[in-house]
């Protein structure tokens, strides 16, 4: 089960992922990120505090937007990952491509 909550704070969009991302629901994550690609959004932050599990289906979604974010000048980051999920990013070296930070304040401050 995956639930995605969106919170807009000015030009910052926070996507809170609640549950598990796998091949059965990664399309929902894809849609949410696709919808975030708007000119008025400058920061996209994934709140991963309630993300219990992510498989390569979900990781692949993040990776497929790395260049889009960069081309549009959108600062993209992920915060609050539990240890097990954070380790999955590290195993693949995705933490060298995507900013993974401890909290929301740090995530939003990345734009400065």
């Amino acid at each position, binding site marked *: 089960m995956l639930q995605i909550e969106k919170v807009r704070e000015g030009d910052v969009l926070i996507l809170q992922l609640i549950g598990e991302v796998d091949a*059965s629901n990664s399309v929902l994550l894809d849609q949410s990120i696709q919808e975030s690609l708007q000119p008025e959004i400058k920061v996209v932050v994934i709140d991963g505090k309630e993300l219990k599990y992510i*498989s390569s*289906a979900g990781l*692949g979604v993040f*990776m*497929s937007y790395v260049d889009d974010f960069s081309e549009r000048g959108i600062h993209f980051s992920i915060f609050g990952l539990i240890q097990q999920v954070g380790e*999955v990013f590290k195993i693949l070296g995705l933490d060298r491509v995507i900013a993974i930070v401890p909290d929301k304040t740090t995530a939003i401050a990345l734009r400065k």
Partner: protein
Amino acid sequence: MSPKLILSCSTSALADLRSFIQLNLEVFGFSELDKHQITLAVEEVVANLIIHSHACNPNEIIHLEIKDLGKKVAVEITDKGDGFNLLEYEEPELRQVIEEKRKGGLGILLVKKIMDEIQFESKNGENMCRLIKKFPPNFK
């Protein structure tokens, strides 16, 4: 008796697969982190089979069995049809994944990084992928 599971080839069955693996790894003394990673590796292989070998046809099935090999655990994943030998799969570079915006390709890389051994056999139209992980150092 080795724990066994029969899964329908639908991605909605992946949550059941995770519960089965997590529950049956308890007895081997793995840490929460190890259990999480082994579960992920098994799911990656199974999801790959469901999507690419069985086209998400819920009428087709995959068998799983967890075996205690003494100092290591083996998860055997068996299916019928076109075999997918992940040992022969050349995983992409990260840069390639980003540039080609491909949403797949990372799964097999995860399996190879997480598991200690991967074996593949194909015989009489039946394929078996065996994922092996050593027990933690102080267990047994």
